[in-house]
Protein backbone atom coordinates (compact mmCIF):
# COMPACT_ATOMS: atom_id res chain seq x y z
CA UNK A 1 0.00 0.00 0.00
CA UNK A 2 2.68 2.46 1.03
CA UNK A 3 4.84 1.63 -1.97
CA UNK A 4 1.83 2.16 -4.28
CA UNK A 5 1.21 5.59 -2.78
CA UNK A 6 4.89 6.45 -3.01
CA UNK A 7 5.01 5.27 -6.63
CA UNK A 8 2.00 7.46 -7.43
CA UNK A 9 3.63 10.45 -5.76
CA UNK A 10 6.86 9.84 -7.68
CA UNK A 11 5.11 9.57 -11.04
CA UNK A 12 3.04 12.63 -10.14
CA UNK A 13 6.21 14.55 -9.33
CA UNK A 14 7.80 13.64 -12.67
CA UNK A 15 4.60 14.51 -14.55
CA UNK A 16 4.39 17.85 -12.75
CA UNK A 17 7.98 18.81 -13.49
CA UNK A 18 7.55 17.86 -17.15
CA UNK A 19 4.16 19.53 -17.58
CA UNK A 20 5.08 23.02 -16.35
CA UNK A 21 6.67 23.98 -19.65
CA UNK A 22 3.78 22.57 -21.64
CA UNK A 23 1.26 24.40 -19.50
CA UNK A 24 3.09 27.71 -19.96
CA UNK A 25 3.32 27.43 -23.75
CA UNK A 26 -0.28 26.27 -23.86
CA UNK A 27 -1.49 29.15 -21.74
CA UNK A 28 0.56 31.96 -23.25
CA UNK A 29 0.81 31.06 -26.91
CA UNK A 30 -2.05 28.57 -27.30
CA UNK A 31 0.52 26.35 -28.96
CA UNK A 32 0.72 22.62 -28.40
CA UNK A 33 4.38 21.94 -28.12
CA UNK A 34 5.28 18.42 -29.17
CA UNK A 35 8.92 19.53 -29.28
CA UNK A 36 8.84 19.42 -25.48
CA UNK A 37 9.08 15.63 -25.72
CA UNK A 38 12.11 15.95 -27.97
CA UNK A 39 13.89 18.25 -25.50
CA UNK A 40 13.06 15.78 -22.73
CA UNK A 41 14.33 12.63 -24.42
CA UNK A 42 17.41 14.24 -25.98
CA UNK A 43 18.27 15.70 -22.56
CA UNK A 44 18.04 12.31 -20.90
CA UNK A 45 20.24 10.67 -23.53
CA UNK A 46 22.81 13.45 -23.16
CA UNK A 47 22.68 12.87 -19.40
CA UNK A 48 23.35 9.16 -19.90
CA UNK A 49 26.35 10.02 -22.06
CA UNK A 50 27.65 12.61 -19.60
CA UNK A 51 27.39 10.25 -16.63
CA UNK A 52 30.67 8.33 -17.21
CA UNK A 53 32.58 11.55 -17.98
CA UNK A 54 31.54 13.19 -14.74
CA UNK A 55 32.76 10.28 -12.58
CA UNK A 56 29.12 9.16 -12.10
CA UNK A 57 28.26 12.27 -10.10
CA UNK A 58 24.52 12.40 -10.71
CA UNK A 59 23.81 16.12 -10.07
CA UNK A 60 26.79 17.25 -12.15
CA UNK A 61 25.74 15.21 -15.19
CA UNK A 62 22.20 16.47 -14.70
CA UNK A 63 23.31 20.09 -14.64
CA UNK A 64 25.43 19.55 -17.75
CA UNK A 65 22.52 17.92 -19.61
CA UNK A 66 20.18 20.78 -18.70
CA UNK A 67 22.77 23.36 -19.71
CA UNK A 68 23.29 21.60 -23.02
CA UNK A 69 19.59 21.52 -23.83
CA UNK A 70 18.84 25.19 -23.02
CA UNK A 71 20.30 26.54 -26.31
CA UNK A 72 18.45 23.84 -28.26
CA UNK A 73 15.20 24.90 -26.59
CA UNK A 74 15.93 28.52 -27.41
CA UNK A 75 16.50 27.66 -31.07
CA UNK A 76 13.20 25.74 -31.23
CA UNK A 77 11.35 28.67 -29.67
CA UNK A 78 13.02 31.31 -31.82
CA UNK A 79 12.89 29.64 -35.22
CA UNK A 80 9.88 27.36 -35.10
CA UNK A 81 7.38 28.36 -32.44
CA UNK A 82 7.71 32.12 -32.70
CA UNK A 83 7.49 31.98 -36.48
CA UNK A 84 4.21 30.12 -36.20
CA UNK A 85 2.76 32.17 -33.38
CA UNK A 86 -0.52 33.83 -34.29
CA UNK A 87 -1.02 31.61 -37.29
CA UNK A 88 -3.17 28.53 -37.46
CA UNK A 89 -2.70 26.20 -34.50
CA UNK A 90 -2.52 23.21 -36.80
CA UNK A 91 0.74 24.29 -38.36
CA UNK A 92 2.32 24.76 -34.95
CA UNK A 93 1.25 21.26 -33.93
CA UNK A 94 2.57 19.72 -37.14
CA UNK A 95 5.87 21.62 -37.05
CA UNK A 96 6.64 20.75 -33.42
CA UNK A 97 5.60 17.16 -34.11
CA UNK A 98 8.13 17.13 -36.95
CA UNK A 99 10.77 18.26 -34.43
CA UNK A 100 9.77 15.35 -32.17
CA UNK A 101 10.17 12.90 -35.07
CA UNK A 102 13.57 14.32 -35.99
CA UNK A 103 14.66 14.08 -32.34
CA UNK A 104 13.55 10.46 -32.01
CA UNK A 105 15.41 9.54 -35.19
CA UNK A 106 18.50 11.43 -34.10
CA UNK A 107 18.53 9.43 -30.86
CA UNK A 108 18.16 6.18 -32.78
CA UNK A 109 21.05 7.26 -35.03
CA UNK A 110 23.43 8.24 -32.20
CA UNK A 111 22.53 5.91 -29.33
CA UNK A 112 20.64 3.07 -31.04
CA UNK A 113 17.26 1.65 -30.16
CA UNK A 114 18.29 -0.47 -27.17
CA UNK A 115 16.73 0.68 -23.86
CA UNK A 116 19.21 2.48 -21.62
CA UNK A 117 18.95 1.78 -17.89
CA UNK A 118 20.38 4.16 -15.27
CA UNK A 119 21.20 2.92 -11.80
CA UNK A 120 19.64 4.49 -8.71
CA UNK A 121 22.01 7.27 -7.60
CA UNK A 122 21.15 6.97 -3.89
CA UNK A 123 20.30 3.31 -3.59
CA UNK A 124 19.45 3.55 0.10
CA UNK A 125 16.37 1.53 1.02
CA UNK A 126 14.20 2.79 3.87
CA UNK A 127 11.96 0.59 5.96
CA UNK A 128 8.67 2.28 6.84
CA UNK A 129 6.01 0.23 8.67
CA UNK A 130 7.69 -2.94 7.53
CA UNK A 131 7.74 -1.96 3.84
CA UNK A 132 10.97 -1.36 1.96
CA UNK A 133 10.89 1.87 -0.04
CA UNK A 134 13.58 3.61 -2.05
CA UNK A 135 14.87 6.86 -0.59
CA UNK A 136 15.39 8.14 -4.15
CA UNK A 137 11.66 8.22 -4.81
CA UNK A 138 11.06 10.25 -1.67
CA UNK A 139 13.73 12.68 -2.87
CA UNK A 140 12.02 12.99 -6.29
CA UNK A 141 8.67 13.72 -4.63
CA UNK A 142 10.18 16.27 -2.26
CA UNK A 143 12.03 18.02 -5.08
CA UNK A 144 8.74 18.43 -6.97
CA UNK A 145 7.14 20.00 -3.90
CA UNK A 146 10.11 22.31 -3.42
CA UNK A 147 9.96 23.20 -7.11
CA UNK A 148 6.26 24.02 -6.80
CA UNK A 149 6.88 26.52 -4.02
CA UNK A 150 9.96 27.91 -5.76
CA UNK A 151 7.91 28.50 -8.90
CA UNK A 152 5.15 30.11 -6.84
CA UNK A 153 7.67 32.54 -5.43
CA UNK A 154 9.12 33.11 -8.89
CA UNK A 155 5.74 33.82 -10.43
CA UNK A 156 4.50 36.07 -7.63
CA UNK A 157 7.68 37.86 -6.56
CA UNK A 158 10.09 38.04 -9.46
CA UNK A 159 9.37 40.59 -12.20
CA UNK A 160 9.86 38.11 -15.06
CA UNK A 161 7.45 35.66 -13.41
CA UNK A 162 4.92 38.41 -12.84
CA UNK A 163 5.09 39.47 -16.48
CA UNK A 164 4.61 35.88 -17.66
CA UNK A 165 1.61 35.43 -15.36
CA UNK A 166 0.15 38.72 -16.57
CA UNK A 167 0.65 37.63 -20.16
CA UNK A 168 -1.08 34.34 -19.40
CA UNK A 169 -4.11 36.43 -18.43
CA UNK A 170 -3.99 39.09 -21.10
CA UNK A 171 -1.25 39.16 -23.67
CA UNK A 172 -2.39 42.33 -25.38
CA UNK A 173 -2.64 44.20 -22.09
CA UNK A 174 1.00 43.42 -21.33
CA UNK A 175 2.03 44.52 -24.80
CA UNK A 176 0.17 47.76 -24.27
CA UNK A 177 2.41 48.44 -21.26
CA UNK A 178 5.34 48.55 -23.65
CA UNK A 179 6.86 45.21 -22.66
CA UNK A 180 8.38 42.89 -25.23
CA UNK A 181 6.19 39.88 -24.53
CA UNK A 182 8.14 37.62 -26.87
CA UNK A 183 11.30 38.05 -24.82
CA UNK A 184 9.57 36.91 -21.63
CA UNK A 185 7.89 34.04 -23.41
CA UNK A 186 11.31 32.95 -24.62
CA UNK A 187 12.60 32.96 -21.07
CA UNK A 188 9.58 31.04 -19.80
CA UNK A 189 9.90 28.56 -22.64
CA UNK A 190 13.58 27.92 -21.94
CA UNK A 191 12.87 27.50 -18.21
CA UNK A 192 10.09 25.05 -19.03
CA UNK A 193 12.39 23.07 -21.31
CA UNK A 194 15.08 22.95 -18.64
CA UNK A 195 12.51 21.57 -16.22
CA UNK A 196 11.50 18.95 -18.81
CA UNK A 197 15.11 17.73 -18.89
CA UNK A 198 15.19 17.79 -15.07
CA UNK A 199 12.05 15.66 -14.92
CA UNK A 200 13.45 13.26 -17.50
CA UNK A 201 16.74 12.84 -15.66
CA UNK A 202 14.95 12.27 -12.35
CA UNK A 203 12.74 9.68 -14.06
CA UNK A 204 15.64 7.87 -15.78
CA UNK A 205 16.65 5.68 -12.79
CA UNK A 206 13.02 4.60 -12.25
CA UNK A 207 12.36 3.56 -15.84
CA UNK A 208 14.49 2.76 -18.88
CA UNK A 209 15.12 5.25 -21.63
CA UNK A 210 14.17 4.54 -25.23
CA UNK A 211 13.96 6.80 -28.31
CA UNK A 212 10.17 7.21 -28.21
CA UNK A 213 9.90 7.96 -24.49
CA UNK A 214 9.28 11.63 -25.21
CA UNK A 215 6.17 10.67 -27.12
CA UNK A 216 4.79 8.56 -24.28
CA UNK A 217 5.29 11.10 -21.51
CA UNK A 218 3.89 13.84 -23.78
CA UNK A 219 0.57 12.01 -23.99
CA UNK A 220 0.38 11.74 -20.21
CA UNK A 221 1.45 15.35 -19.75
CA UNK A 222 -1.19 16.59 -22.19
CA UNK A 223 -3.74 14.77 -20.05
CA UNK A 224 -2.30 16.51 -16.97
CA UNK A 225 -2.51 19.92 -18.63
CA UNK A 226 -6.06 19.34 -19.88
CA UNK A 227 -7.26 18.05 -16.49
CA UNK A 228 -5.49 20.83 -14.59
CA UNK A 229 -6.57 23.60 -16.91
CA UNK A 230 -4.34 25.05 -19.61
CA UNK A 231 -1.99 27.67 -18.24
CA UNK A 232 -3.11 27.06 -14.67
CA UNK A 233 0.08 26.25 -12.78
CA UNK A 234 -1.53 25.25 -9.48
CA UNK A 235 -4.06 23.13 -11.35
CA UNK A 236 -1.20 21.41 -13.15
CA UNK A 237 0.42 20.58 -9.80
CA UNK A 238 -2.74 19.05 -8.38
CA UNK A 239 -3.76 17.15 -11.53
CA UNK A 240 -0.25 15.74 -11.95
CA UNK A 241 -0.43 14.09 -8.54
CA UNK A 242 -4.02 12.95 -9.03
CA UNK A 243 -3.13 11.31 -12.34
CA UNK A 244 0.06 9.91 -10.82
CA UNK A 245 -2.05 8.20 -8.18
CA UNK A 246 -4.42 6.97 -10.90
CA UNK A 247 -1.47 5.37 -12.69
CA UNK A 248 -0.12 3.80 -9.51
CA UNK A 249 -3.43 2.38 -8.31
CA UNK A 250 -4.46 1.08 -11.74
CA UNK A 251 -0.99 -0.35 -12.17
CA UNK A 252 -1.41 -2.33 -8.96
CA UNK A 253 -4.70 -3.87 -10.10
CA UNK A 254 -4.08 -4.34 -13.82
CA UNK A 255 -0.59 -3.27 -14.73
CA UNK A 256 -0.83 -2.83 -18.50
CA UNK A 257 -3.92 -0.58 -18.29
CA UNK A 258 -2.21 2.08 -16.15
CA UNK A 259 -1.58 4.67 -18.86
CA UNK A 260 -4.94 4.06 -20.48
CA UNK A 261 -6.79 4.92 -17.26
CA UNK A 262 -5.28 8.41 -17.42
CA UNK A 263 -7.03 9.06 -20.71
CA UNK A 264 -10.29 7.75 -19.32
CA UNK A 265 -10.01 10.32 -16.51
CA UNK A 266 -9.22 12.99 -19.07
CA UNK A 267 -12.28 12.08 -21.13
CA UNK A 268 -14.43 12.29 -17.96
CA UNK A 269 -13.05 15.74 -17.19
CA UNK A 270 -13.79 16.92 -20.71
CA UNK A 271 -17.28 15.50 -20.37
CA UNK A 272 -18.01 16.97 -16.94
CA UNK A 273 -20.24 19.77 -18.22
CA UNK A 274 -22.58 17.52 -20.19
CA UNK A 275 -22.69 15.03 -17.29
CA UNK A 276 -23.55 17.76 -14.78
CA UNK A 277 -26.27 19.18 -16.98
CA UNK A 278 -27.66 15.68 -17.48
CA UNK A 279 -27.76 15.11 -13.72
CA UNK A 280 -29.43 18.48 -13.24
CA UNK A 281 -32.05 17.57 -15.79
CA UNK A 282 -32.69 14.28 -13.97
CA UNK A 283 -33.28 16.21 -10.78
CA UNK A 284 -35.77 18.41 -12.56
CA UNK A 285 -33.73 21.58 -12.42
CA UNK A 286 -33.18 23.67 -15.53
CA UNK A 287 -29.79 23.09 -17.15
CA UNK A 288 -27.58 26.15 -17.49
CA UNK A 289 -25.65 26.94 -20.64
Amino acid at each position, binding site marked *: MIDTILYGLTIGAILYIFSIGLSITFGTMQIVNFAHGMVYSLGVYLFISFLPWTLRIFPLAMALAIAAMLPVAYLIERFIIRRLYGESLDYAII*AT*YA*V*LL*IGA*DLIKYIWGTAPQPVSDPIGVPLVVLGVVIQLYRVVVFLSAVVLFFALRIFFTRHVIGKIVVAALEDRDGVRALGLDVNKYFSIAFVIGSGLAVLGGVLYAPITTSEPYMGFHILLLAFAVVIVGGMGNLTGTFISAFVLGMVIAITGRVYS*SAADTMVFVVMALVLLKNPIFSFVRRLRGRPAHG
Partner: protein
Amino acid sequence: MHNIAVHQQSFPVQPAQRFLVFRDMAIIAAAFLALSLFTPLYWLTDFAVMCILVLSFDLLYGYMGHLSFGHMLYFGAGAYMASLALLHLAPNPFLAILAGLVCGAALSAVVGFVVVRTSGAAFALVNLAFNQIGYWLALSGLQDYTHGEDGLPSSVEALWFLDFRQAPVAFGFMLVCLLLVFWLLKTLTASPYGIVVRSIKENEDRVKFLGYNTFRYKWLTFVISSTLAAFAGSLYALVKGFVAPSDVNPLENTRIIFSVLIGGAGNLYGALVGSVAFEMISNLLATTIARWEMILGLMLLALVFWFRRGITGYAYQLYLDRSYERLVKFAQGMGLSLRRQK
Protein backbone atom coordinates in the same frame (compact mmCIF):
# COMPACT_ATOMS: atom_id res chain seq x y z
CA MET B 1 -4.19 38.93 -31.45
CA HIS B 2 -5.56 35.70 -30.09
CA ASN B 3 -6.18 32.76 -32.35
CA ILE B 4 -5.75 34.47 -35.64
CA ALA B 5 -6.28 31.68 -38.10
CA VAL B 6 -4.64 32.15 -41.46
CA HIS B 7 -6.27 29.48 -43.53
CA GLN B 8 -5.04 28.44 -46.88
CA GLN B 9 -7.06 29.66 -49.76
CA SER B 10 -9.88 27.20 -50.17
CA PHE B 11 -11.35 26.33 -53.48
CA PRO B 12 -14.55 28.14 -54.41
CA VAL B 13 -17.77 26.54 -53.25
CA GLN B 14 -19.48 25.28 -56.33
CA PRO B 15 -23.07 24.23 -56.76
CA ALA B 16 -23.68 20.51 -57.09
CA GLN B 17 -22.02 19.43 -60.29
CA ARG B 18 -23.80 16.33 -61.29
CA PHE B 19 -21.77 15.54 -64.37
CA LEU B 20 -18.42 17.10 -63.50
CA VAL B 21 -18.09 14.49 -60.77
CA PHE B 22 -18.18 11.74 -63.34
CA ARG B 23 -15.59 13.53 -65.46
CA ASP B 24 -13.30 13.72 -62.40
CA MET B 25 -13.92 10.05 -61.61
CA ALA B 26 -12.96 9.14 -65.16
CA ILE B 27 -9.77 11.18 -64.83
CA ILE B 28 -8.88 9.44 -61.54
CA ALA B 29 -9.47 6.01 -63.06
CA ALA B 30 -7.43 6.93 -66.11
CA ALA B 31 -4.61 8.27 -63.93
CA PHE B 32 -4.48 5.05 -61.92
CA LEU B 33 -4.51 2.94 -65.06
CA ALA B 34 -1.73 5.08 -66.53
CA LEU B 35 0.29 4.63 -63.32
CA SER B 36 -0.16 0.87 -63.61
CA LEU B 37 1.98 0.94 -66.76
CA PHE B 38 5.14 1.63 -64.77
CA THR B 39 4.36 0.75 -61.14
CA PRO B 40 3.65 -2.71 -59.72
CA LEU B 41 -0.05 -3.42 -59.38
CA TYR B 42 0.11 -4.30 -55.68
CA TRP B 43 1.59 -0.88 -54.98
CA LEU B 44 -1.37 0.76 -56.68
CA THR B 45 -3.77 -1.37 -54.67
CA ASP B 46 -2.16 0.02 -51.51
CA PHE B 47 -2.25 3.52 -52.96
CA ALA B 48 -6.00 3.27 -53.56
CA VAL B 49 -6.60 2.16 -49.95
CA MET B 50 -4.37 4.97 -48.68
CA CYS B 51 -6.24 7.43 -50.91
CA ILE B 52 -9.54 6.46 -49.27
CA LEU B 53 -8.01 6.95 -45.82
CA VAL B 54 -6.56 10.35 -46.71
CA LEU B 55 -9.80 11.43 -48.39
CA SER B 56 -11.68 10.61 -45.19
CA PHE B 57 -9.16 12.64 -43.20
CA ASP B 58 -9.47 15.53 -45.62
CA LEU B 59 -13.18 15.80 -44.83
CA LEU B 60 -12.31 16.24 -41.16
CA TYR B 61 -9.21 18.43 -41.47
CA GLY B 62 -9.38 20.08 -44.87
CA TYR B 63 -13.09 20.82 -44.90
CA MET B 64 -14.02 21.15 -41.23
CA GLY B 65 -10.62 22.39 -40.03
CA HIS B 66 -10.34 19.88 -37.18
CA LEU B 67 -6.84 18.43 -37.06
CA SER B 68 -6.90 14.96 -35.53
CA PHE B 69 -3.94 12.93 -34.40
CA GLY B 70 -6.09 9.85 -33.92
CA HIS B 71 -7.40 8.88 -37.31
CA MET B 72 -5.48 5.60 -37.35
CA LEU B 73 -7.75 4.35 -34.56
CA TYR B 74 -10.68 3.97 -36.96
CA PHE B 75 -8.51 2.56 -39.72
CA GLY B 76 -7.22 -0.05 -37.28
CA ALA B 77 -10.66 -0.74 -35.82
CA GLY B 78 -12.04 -1.40 -39.29
CA ALA B 79 -9.09 -3.61 -40.18
CA TYR B 80 -9.32 -5.67 -36.98
CA MET B 81 -13.09 -6.00 -37.16
CA ALA B 82 -12.96 -7.12 -40.81
CA SER B 83 -10.30 -9.73 -39.98
CA LEU B 84 -12.29 -10.98 -37.00
CA ALA B 85 -15.41 -11.28 -39.16
CA LEU B 86 -13.42 -13.23 -41.75
CA LEU B 87 -12.07 -15.54 -39.09
CA HIS B 88 -15.11 -16.14 -36.92
CA LEU B 89 -18.20 -15.48 -39.05
CA ALA B 90 -17.61 -16.34 -42.69
CA PRO B 91 -14.78 -15.70 -45.18
CA ASN B 92 -17.03 -13.42 -47.21
CA PRO B 93 -15.39 -10.10 -48.27
CA PHE B 94 -18.61 -8.08 -48.21
CA LEU B 95 -19.50 -9.32 -44.76
CA ALA B 96 -16.01 -8.26 -43.61
CA ILE B 97 -16.41 -4.79 -45.09
CA LEU B 98 -19.83 -4.46 -43.48
CA ALA B 99 -18.41 -5.52 -40.11
CA GLY B 100 -15.61 -2.98 -40.44
CA LEU B 101 -18.03 -0.20 -41.38
CA VAL B 102 -20.41 -0.96 -38.50
CA CYS B 103 -17.54 -1.13 -36.04
CA GLY B 104 -16.07 2.18 -37.26
CA ALA B 105 -19.44 3.92 -37.20
CA ALA B 106 -20.37 2.65 -33.71
CA LEU B 107 -16.96 3.46 -32.25
CA SER B 108 -16.80 6.95 -33.73
CA ALA B 109 -20.40 7.69 -32.75
CA VAL B 110 -19.50 7.09 -29.09
CA VAL B 111 -16.01 8.62 -29.17
CA GLY B 112 -17.25 11.53 -31.28
CA PHE B 113 -19.68 12.47 -28.54
CA VAL B 114 -16.68 13.21 -26.29
CA VAL B 115 -14.19 14.41 -28.84
CA VAL B 116 -16.31 16.88 -30.77
CA ARG B 117 -16.86 18.97 -27.63
CA THR B 118 -13.27 20.12 -27.96
CA SER B 119 -11.64 22.02 -30.76
CA GLY B 120 -8.24 23.21 -31.82
CA ALA B 121 -5.35 21.79 -29.87
CA ALA B 122 -7.48 19.83 -27.42
CA PHE B 123 -9.23 18.08 -30.32
CA ALA B 124 -5.92 16.86 -31.75
CA LEU B 125 -4.72 15.67 -28.35
CA VAL B 126 -7.90 13.96 -27.20
CA ASN B 127 -8.00 12.05 -30.47
CA LEU B 128 -4.38 11.11 -29.95
CA ALA B 129 -5.24 9.86 -26.47
CA PHE B 130 -8.07 7.69 -27.80
CA ASN B 131 -5.78 6.35 -30.48
CA GLN B 132 -3.27 5.45 -27.80
CA ILE B 133 -6.00 3.59 -25.88
CA GLY B 134 -6.88 1.70 -29.06
CA TYR B 135 -3.23 0.87 -29.67
CA TRP B 136 -2.94 -0.46 -26.15
CA LEU B 137 -6.12 -2.53 -26.58
CA ALA B 138 -4.78 -4.06 -29.80
CA LEU B 139 -1.37 -4.69 -28.27
CA SER B 140 -2.33 -6.14 -24.89
CA GLY B 141 -5.80 -5.20 -23.63
CA LEU B 142 -7.73 -7.41 -26.04
CA GLN B 143 -4.88 -9.82 -26.64
CA ASP B 144 -7.23 -12.82 -26.74
CA TYR B 145 -8.89 -11.46 -29.87
CA THR B 146 -6.09 -9.51 -31.55
CA HIS B 147 -3.20 -11.87 -30.72
CA GLY B 148 -1.17 -8.85 -29.61
CA GLU B 149 2.13 -8.33 -31.34
CA ASP B 150 1.85 -11.50 -33.41
CA GLY B 151 -0.90 -9.93 -35.50
CA LEU B 152 -4.06 -11.41 -36.88
CA PRO B 153 -3.87 -13.35 -40.16
CA SER B 154 -7.05 -13.97 -42.11
CA SER B 155 -8.01 -15.30 -45.51
CA VAL B 156 -10.80 -14.39 -47.89
CA GLU B 157 -12.72 -16.91 -49.90
CA ALA B 158 -12.99 -16.23 -53.61
CA LEU B 159 -16.51 -15.05 -54.37
CA TRP B 160 -17.51 -15.65 -57.99
CA PHE B 161 -14.86 -13.61 -59.85
CA LEU B 162 -13.77 -11.67 -56.76
CA ASP B 163 -10.52 -13.38 -55.83
CA PHE B 164 -8.35 -11.01 -53.82
CA ARG B 165 -5.29 -13.18 -54.33
CA GLN B 166 -5.22 -12.08 -57.95
CA ALA B 167 -3.58 -8.67 -58.15
CA PRO B 168 -5.67 -7.24 -61.04
CA VAL B 169 -8.93 -8.20 -59.31
CA ALA B 170 -7.84 -6.66 -56.01
CA PHE B 171 -6.67 -3.52 -57.79
CA GLY B 172 -9.90 -3.19 -59.75
CA PHE B 173 -12.01 -3.65 -56.63
CA MET B 174 -10.03 -1.01 -54.68
CA LEU B 175 -10.24 1.41 -57.59
CA VAL B 176 -14.01 1.04 -57.75
CA CYS B 177 -14.20 1.59 -53.98
CA LEU B 178 -12.01 4.67 -54.27
CA LEU B 179 -14.22 6.11 -57.00
CA LEU B 180 -17.31 5.44 -54.89
CA VAL B 181 -15.80 7.23 -51.89
CA PHE B 182 -14.70 10.11 -54.09
CA TRP B 183 -18.21 10.44 -55.53
CA LEU B 184 -19.74 10.34 -52.06
CA LEU B 185 -17.42 12.99 -50.65
CA LYS B 186 -17.72 15.20 -53.71
CA THR B 187 -21.50 15.12 -53.48
CA LEU B 188 -21.45 15.67 -49.72
CA THR B 189 -19.06 18.62 -49.79
CA ALA B 190 -20.94 20.37 -52.59
CA SER B 191 -24.26 19.99 -50.76
CA PRO B 192 -25.69 22.53 -48.28
CA TYR B 193 -24.35 20.28 -45.54
CA GLY B 194 -20.85 20.62 -46.99
CA ILE B 195 -21.15 24.39 -47.04
CA VAL B 196 -22.09 24.44 -43.34
CA VAL B 197 -19.08 22.21 -42.62
CA ARG B 198 -16.76 24.58 -44.47
CA SER B 199 -18.27 27.53 -42.64
CA ILE B 200 -17.49 25.83 -39.31
CA LYS B 201 -13.85 25.85 -40.39
CA GLU B 202 -13.94 29.56 -41.12
CA ASN B 203 -15.84 30.73 -38.05
CA GLU B 204 -17.85 28.43 -35.86
CA ASP B 205 -19.43 31.17 -33.75
CA ARG B 206 -20.99 32.83 -36.76
CA VAL B 207 -22.45 29.52 -37.91
CA LYS B 208 -23.97 29.17 -34.44
CA PHE B 209 -25.43 32.68 -34.68
CA LEU B 210 -27.10 31.67 -37.92
CA GLY B 211 -29.02 29.10 -35.90
CA TYR B 212 -27.20 25.94 -36.86
CA ASN B 213 -26.58 23.30 -34.24
CA THR B 214 -22.85 23.04 -34.96
CA PHE B 215 -22.36 20.19 -32.50
CA ARG B 216 -24.62 17.99 -34.60
CA TYR B 217 -22.79 18.89 -37.82
CA LYS B 218 -19.39 18.33 -36.26
CA TRP B 219 -20.43 15.01 -34.77
CA LEU B 220 -21.90 13.84 -38.08
CA THR B 221 -18.78 14.85 -39.98
CA PHE B 222 -16.60 13.07 -37.46
CA VAL B 223 -18.66 9.89 -37.79
CA ILE B 224 -18.67 10.00 -41.60
CA SER B 225 -14.95 10.63 -41.74
CA SER B 226 -14.15 7.89 -39.23
CA THR B 227 -16.46 5.38 -40.89
CA LEU B 228 -14.75 5.96 -44.21
CA ALA B 229 -11.41 5.43 -42.47
CA ALA B 230 -12.77 2.14 -41.11
CA PHE B 231 -13.85 1.29 -44.67
CA ALA B 232 -10.26 1.84 -45.81
CA GLY B 233 -9.11 -0.32 -42.91
CA SER B 234 -11.37 -3.23 -43.81
CA LEU B 235 -10.22 -3.04 -47.45
CA TYR B 236 -6.65 -3.07 -46.19
CA ALA B 237 -7.37 -6.21 -44.16
CA LEU B 238 -8.88 -7.89 -47.25
CA VAL B 239 -5.87 -7.10 -49.43
CA LYS B 240 -3.12 -7.81 -46.92
CA GLY B 241 -4.77 -10.73 -45.16
CA PHE B 242 -2.91 -9.65 -42.03
CA VAL B 243 -3.49 -6.99 -39.36
CA ALA B 244 -0.93 -5.99 -36.71
CA PRO B 245 -0.97 -3.41 -33.90
CA SER B 246 1.27 -1.20 -36.04
CA ASP B 247 -1.85 -0.47 -38.13
CA VAL B 248 -3.33 1.32 -35.10
CA ASN B 249 -0.08 2.98 -34.05
CA PRO B 250 -0.68 6.68 -33.33
CA LEU B 251 2.69 7.49 -34.87
CA GLU B 252 1.32 6.42 -38.25
CA ASN B 253 -0.97 9.45 -38.27
CA THR B 254 1.97 11.45 -39.59
CA ARG B 255 1.58 9.64 -42.90
CA ILE B 256 -2.00 10.86 -43.27
CA ILE B 257 -1.28 14.42 -42.21
CA PHE B 258 1.76 14.57 -44.45
CA SER B 259 -0.23 13.29 -47.43
CA VAL B 260 -2.95 15.88 -46.95
CA LEU B 261 -0.44 18.69 -46.55
CA ILE B 262 1.71 17.76 -49.53
CA GLY B 263 -1.31 17.53 -51.80
CA GLY B 264 -3.13 20.54 -50.39
CA ALA B 265 -5.81 20.38 -47.70
CA GLY B 266 -9.42 21.33 -48.28
CA ASN B 267 -9.98 19.86 -51.69
CA LEU B 268 -10.36 16.21 -52.54
CA TYR B 269 -7.92 16.31 -55.46
CA GLY B 270 -5.20 17.40 -53.05
CA ALA B 271 -5.81 14.37 -50.87
CA LEU B 272 -5.56 12.07 -53.91
CA VAL B 273 -2.44 13.70 -55.35
CA GLY B 274 -0.85 13.94 -51.91
CA SER B 275 -1.38 10.34 -50.90
CA VAL B 276 -0.12 8.97 -54.22
CA ALA B 277 2.89 11.30 -54.06
CA PHE B 278 3.63 10.38 -50.44
CA GLU B 279 3.25 6.65 -51.00
CA MET B 280 5.53 6.89 -54.04
CA ILE B 281 8.16 8.75 -52.02
CA SER B 282 7.94 6.39 -49.06
CA ASN B 283 7.97 3.24 -51.21
CA LEU B 284 10.98 4.46 -53.16
CA LEU B 285 12.91 6.08 -50.31
CA ALA B 286 12.05 4.17 -47.15
CA THR B 287 13.70 1.01 -48.43
CA THR B 288 16.88 2.76 -49.53
CA ILE B 289 17.35 5.44 -46.87
CA ALA B 290 17.85 4.41 -43.26
CA ARG B 291 17.06 7.78 -41.68
CA TRP B 292 13.54 7.86 -43.07
CA GLU B 293 11.84 9.45 -40.04
CA MET B 294 14.31 12.31 -39.99
CA ILE B 295 13.72 13.06 -43.65
CA LEU B 296 9.98 12.89 -43.03
CA GLY B 297 10.32 15.39 -40.18
CA LEU B 298 12.47 17.76 -42.20
CA MET B 299 10.07 17.58 -45.14
CA LEU B 300 7.13 18.27 -42.79
CA LEU B 301 8.91 21.37 -41.48
CA ALA B 302 9.62 22.54 -45.04
CA LEU B 303 5.97 22.00 -45.97
CA VAL B 304 4.70 23.97 -42.98
CA PHE B 305 7.00 26.91 -43.59
CA TRP B 306 7.17 27.23 -47.36
CA PHE B 307 4.67 25.03 -49.14
CA ARG B 308 1.45 25.19 -47.16
CA ARG B 309 -0.96 25.12 -50.03
CA GLY B 310 0.38 21.84 -51.30
CA ILE B 311 0.65 20.73 -54.89
CA THR B 312 -2.96 21.40 -55.87
CA GLY B 313 -3.18 24.72 -54.01
CA TYR B 314 -0.03 25.86 -55.76
CA ALA B 315 -1.31 24.76 -59.16
CA TYR B 316 -4.62 26.52 -58.51
CA GLN B 317 -2.80 29.73 -57.60
CA LEU B 318 -0.79 29.53 -60.84
CA TYR B 319 -4.04 29.04 -62.75
CA LEU B 320 -5.62 32.05 -61.01
CA ASP B 321 -2.60 34.24 -61.77
CA ARG B 322 -2.65 33.15 -65.41
CA SER B 323 -6.32 33.90 -65.86
CA TYR B 324 -5.87 37.24 -64.10
CA GLU B 325 -3.08 38.18 -66.51
CA ARG B 326 -5.25 37.22 -69.42
CA LEU B 327 -8.05 39.39 -68.03
CA VAL B 328 -5.68 42.36 -67.64
CA LYS B 329 -4.50 41.97 -71.24
CA PHE B 330 -8.07 41.75 -72.44
CA ALA B 331 -8.97 44.89 -70.47
CA GLN B 332 -5.95 46.74 -71.86
CA GLY B 333 -7.14 45.89 -75.33
CA MET B 334 -10.46 47.49 -74.43
CA GLY B 335 -8.62 50.57 -73.11
CA LEU B 336 -9.26 49.84 -69.41
CA SER B 337 -6.81 49.33 -66.56
CA LEU B 338 -7.46 46.80 -63.82
CA ARG B 339 -6.10 46.92 -60.31
CA ARG B 340 -5.87 43.77 -58.28
CA GLN B 341 -8.13 43.67 -55.30
CA LYS B 342 -6.40 42.56 -52.14
